[in-house]
């Protein structure tokens, strides 16, 4: 027997009428032990034969039928053992599933408990209890009617089986509903009915049950398509166009905040301050990178960025309370930023995103949430049948659309990358996430490589300067195979020095317009990950033919100066050459050679000469206002077999590092001068823009709070004030200040000289009027272009049209800058990944420093690992914490009792990896010192001491203590019902 159900469905802008067959059966049993009619299996007899009447109002044996809103509102009461022998009709179950997945799960748990005697009656498929929707009837009314029909059916069905019972022993069915209308109708139909509070108040021997009644009586309305859209509508393209033309709207790119998913900024070209956008309405479905149209709010509605660290953890039914929290927490005293609302999307910049699947808690559901690895990107709702497999994998998902009534954008699954936590998978993720081209080189590219064995021909020798007799050496980090620079230094008879910087002649092998050239231009740079290098050019070139290896004859592009002993430059010349490096040294080897005065060979002498010249050059550079900046850099010692990190150390800087750096800078500057002179329109240079003073404001404020005046008027003043900001009690203070200063800086960028005003060529960080990149052509494409320009300018090579087209150069610079930035981020992400791997199964106490103070957290920098972590000080909703922190925005402090946290304060924190969520491992910080009772955790050493003293049982207690400090609670997921 069957009937049909008809409903309308919207799909891809069209409306479909869908007709489904709906089967009705006559073999659905009532589940009651009384029944003599139904052909039950034994295990199906859930409802008792003689339920105990425990209710004063209904002093006869009875079963209970629940209404949907009773389940939704009073799930707490239902979880008590007091109510037994309950019939849950399918209509209710479906509605609850639809309305709240968490309540649904709790209800299923109750149903699964055999002691509770909850029976699910599939009324929707029972031939006698299925009701069809009447014209004009609301879904709710139809469902209520369906429930009443089921109650009536049960009543008559059970009655026919207990005709022989005494009247007062007969089991009746009671409907519990809070809906006034439905109750009235049920009464009219002659059913037993009560409100839940009425019923619960009269339950005997169960004190306290009444207290669990929720007073929160939501009138619920189940509407399939009629829910109020979450987002305001976007403007039409023509409206946006007119708005921008008339100046009412501004166009810019949207940058989502990494720390707070409800906040972002719009970077409008030609405005020095970014426009702040906040809240769901303000962001209005913009995704990081989108080009958007933004409407400025009137000045009195301007706001300040919240200092909250907020991650989207709520499930779908969650109302965004955080949003209100942000918007309320406006502080009147702080200077407000221009604030706006995004009103339209001009161009989506959606790409494919890596991330993980967050499985729908409801078993068998095909709709899941995708959590991207990049925190700036919102979660995406996807549909997939293979959630079980995918939930343990890194997957790629693409966004399709973001309708107004959906909290998350809709997308679809593209492909799986591999198992979560697997290092190869994670590497793949971060390469994809940073848009690093990392596929193998194509056949076309490989065919451009020279044939092996490669020999230097007579013709080559004639066209190049032969420097094979010069004692040249290279100094690089250990394990470096792509050696692109080598040096020499020779004392001349007149007391001056002959110093040469020899750079691998990559442009000899990579000819313009070839496949290999195009590929290199696309890749733009070699990307260094902790355990992997993604080459810009094939390995044959990068590690062999171009690499200036020891004792092998190689082509080079040389830059040779005559310097006085005071490092004044007498003359400069450039030439293509053939060299033979005497030795490829590491920084450490070179340092030993310099320091070991017993060594007096030519190499040692030349190194010493270079070193002393470098010191003078550096001093002069710093006097000119070059900045010494800092960023925490670390190295991993990796296990040679598993490639897993086993030890972490901060990168050591030796004199030799600075020596090589100094000469590279010198070469770059002189090459820049030379090519700019010969190609004023199309030289590829690098500039570091001086940034507006406003960018330094928070930094200056932080300094002032600690009594240091930072002057950012000019590079020199800044360098000076940084030098003076030293605190004797905190050796790391100055470094941290420099780290912060570095973060304020803008990034240096490549540009074509014809596209930028002459006075903007300046390199702020190096205090150089012009600068370029010449010294690493193996790993940077910009250097290849510079080599070509220089070769043309000295007559060693011919030019080609693209080289001299400033527009082509400009777009090339664009790509180079983008790739460089991405390569940098990928490198950092790789370090972060390895830090995670390193902390697997480890708990360590480390010295750290407060980098900045947030409203609900402290940002802690741990120099040893170059790691920055968040120490939450206020608990998330639902978690309890005995101590409270007081935040002062003015002074940038968090205070708890007597303990005050200021920026730059040293602290001791305990680091561990939270692996409770396999999909999302994170490093957790817990405070060790200063001690705050109830918040901080005991240090590891003290725990260890106790362990050895005391017996096993106590040891377990201790380990429990260290496993569940407040922070754990903070990171638990909220479970909330609307």
């Amino acid at each position, binding site marked *: 027997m069957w009937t*049909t159900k*008809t409903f309308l469905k919207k799909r891809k802008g069209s*409306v479909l009428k869908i007709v489904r067959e709906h089967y009705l059966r006559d073999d659905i049993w009532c589940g009651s032990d009384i029944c003599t009619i139904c052909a039950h299996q034994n295990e199906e007899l859930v409802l008792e034969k003689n339920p105990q009447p425990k209710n004063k109002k209904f002093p006869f044996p009875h079963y209970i039928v629940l209404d949907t809103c009773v389940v939704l509102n009073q799930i707490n009461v239902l979880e008590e053992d007091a109510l037994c022998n309950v019939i849950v009709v399918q209509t209710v179950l479906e509605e609850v599933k639809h309305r709240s997945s968490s309540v649904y799960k709790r209800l299923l748990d109750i149903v699964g408990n055999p002691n509770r005697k909850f029976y699910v009656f599939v009324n929707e498929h029972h031939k006698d209890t299925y009701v069809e*929707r009447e014209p004009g009837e609301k879904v709710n009314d139809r469902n209520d009617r369906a429930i009443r029909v089921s109650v009536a059916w049960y009543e008559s069905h059970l009655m026919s089986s207990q005709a022989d019972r005494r009247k007062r022993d007969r089991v009746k069915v009671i409907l519990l509903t809070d809906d006034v209308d439905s109750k009235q109708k049920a009464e009219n139909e002659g059913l037993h009915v009560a409100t839940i509070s009425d019923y619960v108040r009269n339950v005997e021997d169960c004190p306290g049950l009444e207290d669990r009644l929720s007073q929160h009586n939501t009138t619920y309305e189940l509407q399939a398509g009629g829910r109020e859209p979450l987002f305001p509508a976007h*403007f*039409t393209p023509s409206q946006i166009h007119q708005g921008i033309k008339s100046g009412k709207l501004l166009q810019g790119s949207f940058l989502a905040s990494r720390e707070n998913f409800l906040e972002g900024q719009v970077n409008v070209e030609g405005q020095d301050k970014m426009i702040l956008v906040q809240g769901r309405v303000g962001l209005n479905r913009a995704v990081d990178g989108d080009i958007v149209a933004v409407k400025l709010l009137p000045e009195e509605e301007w706001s300040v960025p919240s200092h909250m660290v907020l991650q989207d953890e709520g499930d779908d039914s969650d109302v965004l309370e955080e949003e209100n929290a942000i918007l309320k927490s406006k502080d009147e005293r702080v200077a407000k930023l221009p604030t706006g609302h995004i009103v339209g999307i001009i161009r989506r910049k959606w790409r494919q995103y890596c991330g993980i699947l967050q499985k729908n808690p409801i078993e068998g559901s095909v709709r899941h949430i995708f959590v991207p690895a990049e925190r700036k990107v919102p979660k995406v709702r996807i549909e997939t049948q293979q959630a079980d497999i995918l939930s343990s994998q890194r997957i790629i998902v693409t966004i399709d659309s973001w309708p107004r009534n959906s909290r998350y954008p809709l997308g679809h699954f593209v492909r799986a990358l591999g198992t979560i936590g697997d290092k190869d998978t994670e590497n793949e993720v971060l390469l994809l996430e940073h848009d690093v081209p990392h596929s193998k080189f194509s056949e076309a590219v490989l065919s451009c490589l020279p044939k092996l064995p490669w020999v230097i021909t007579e013709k080559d020798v004639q066209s190049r300067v032969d420097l094979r007799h010069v004692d040249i050496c290279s100094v690089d980090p250990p394990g470096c195979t792509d050696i692109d620079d080598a040096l020499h230094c020779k004392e001349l008879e007149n007391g001056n020095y002959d110093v040469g910087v020899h750079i691998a002649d990559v442009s000899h092998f990579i000819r313009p317009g070839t496949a290999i050239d195009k590929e290199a231009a696309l890749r733009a740079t070699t990307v260094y990950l902790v355990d992997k290098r993604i080459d810009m050019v094939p390995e044959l070139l990068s590690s062999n033919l171009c690499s200036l290896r020891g004792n092998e004859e190689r082509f080079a592009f040389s830059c040779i100066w005559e310097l006085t002993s005071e490092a004044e430059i007498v003359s400069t010349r450039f030439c293509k050459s053939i060299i033979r490096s005497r030795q490829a040294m590491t920084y450490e080897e070179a340092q030993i050679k310099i320091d070991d005065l017993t060594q007096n060979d030519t190499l040692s002498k030349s190194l010493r000469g270079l070193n002393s010249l470098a010191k003078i050059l550096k001093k002069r550079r710093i006097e000119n206002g070059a900045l010494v900046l800092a960023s925490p850099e670390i190295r991993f010692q990796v296990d040679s077999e598993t490639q897993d990190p086993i030890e972490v150390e901060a990168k050591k800087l030796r004199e030799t590092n600075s020596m090589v750096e100094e000469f590279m800078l010198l070469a770059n500057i002189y090459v820049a001068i030379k090519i700019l002179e010969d190609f004023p329109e199309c030289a590829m240079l690098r500039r570091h823009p001086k940034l507006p003073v406003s960018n330094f404001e928070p930094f200056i404020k932080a300094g002032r709070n600690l009594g240091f005046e930072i002057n950012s008027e000019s590079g020199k003043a800044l360098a000076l004030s940084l030098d003076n900001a030293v605190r004797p009690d905190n050796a790391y203070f100055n470094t941290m200040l420099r780290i912060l200063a570095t973060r304020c800086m803008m990034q240096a960028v490549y540009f074509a000289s014809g596209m930028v005003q002459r006075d903007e060529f300046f390199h702020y960080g190096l205090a150089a009027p012009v600068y370029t990149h010449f010294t690493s052509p193996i790993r940077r494409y910009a250097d290849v272009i510079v080599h070509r320009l220089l070769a043309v300018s000295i007559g060693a090579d011919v030019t080609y049209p693209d080289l001299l087209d400033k527009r082509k150069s400009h777009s090339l610079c664009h790509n180079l800058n983008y790739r460089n930035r991405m390569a940098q981020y990928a490198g950092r992400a790789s370090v972060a990944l390895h830090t995670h791997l390193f902390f697997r199964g480890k708990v360590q106490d480390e010295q750290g420093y407060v980098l900045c103070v947030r409203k609900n957290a402290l940002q802690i920098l741990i120099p040893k690992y170059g790691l920055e972590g968040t120490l939450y000080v206020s608990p998330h909703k639902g978690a309890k914490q005995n101590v409270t922190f007081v935040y002062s925005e003015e002074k940038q402090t968090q205070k708890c009792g007597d303990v005050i946290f200021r920026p730059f304060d040293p602290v001791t924190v305990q680091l561990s990896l939270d692996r409770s969520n396999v999909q999302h491992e994170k490093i957790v910080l817990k405070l060790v010192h200063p001690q705050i009772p109830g918040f901080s955790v005991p240090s590891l050493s003290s725990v260890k001491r106790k362990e050895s003293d005391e017996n096993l049982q106590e040891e377990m207690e201790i380990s429990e203590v260290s496993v569940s400090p407040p922070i754990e609670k903070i990171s638990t997921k909220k479970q909330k019902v609307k």
Partner: protein
Amino acid sequence: MAEILLSEAEKTFILHGVEEGFRCDGRMRLDYRPMEVETDVVSHASGSARLRLANTDILVGVKTEIDTPYPERPREGKIEFFVDCSANATPAFEGRGGEELGTEISNSLATAYQSSQTFDLTALCILPGQQCWKLYIDILILECGGNLFDAVSLAVKAALHNTRVPKVKGACLDGGTVDLQLSDDPYDCCRLDVSDAPCLVTLCKIGDHCVVDPTAEEETCSSGSVVIAITEKSLVTSVFKTGVGSFHPQTLIDILKVGQTIGLSVNKALRAALLEEEQQGRKKECFGFLK
């Protein structure tokens, strides 16, 4: 059109009969054969009807889809006819055999519905210039028993009468795309006003006289037919001629007059039948073969 083989004697018999005012099946010249119409026979379609006129069997389904209106008519919806001549009807329709006939019928319908005074397309507009409903009218010819034009047009009108367009509760622009809110109640939908939808009346010239509702045999004897599209308000929206024969101007005028009165009564009869069916409500018995 599907030709039936008739002998010369049979043709003469029909011809003489018409001359005398008698037809083979006992009708007068201006009588229709009995018709059966049933609506809502295809549950998947937004509207449907099946019409049987003696041996002619037509099934019509109406599908509603969202489309953008024509730029020159921003406030109007769209309507499109498609006729499928099933090979069940006659072996001649096999393969692409029925294509020509199908196109002829769908074109004639399109012309008949084209006038702004017939079927009101503005009711199908959702957002002027942005979105409108498009009605796809799929006509399936299941059996050919003559007089296809009349039968098809009546079935189309019945199906349109039955059509329920989803009710749009709200529509607004989101970026460049339109965001619709639909009512979730499947019974809550709009009906279309078909009072102005035209019916086609075929007047078939046999000898010197005209007959309506020709059978397939009579069509074979005819030298030409005039088809008139006429609404309930007696408005003629299109007239066209099929077949090879010619008409004297005076004959044509007479024919048009006859057609007009006939068309009116056909329209009236159809309307009465549809109303009667509707009054039976949701409990009505289904005769359709698809349910």
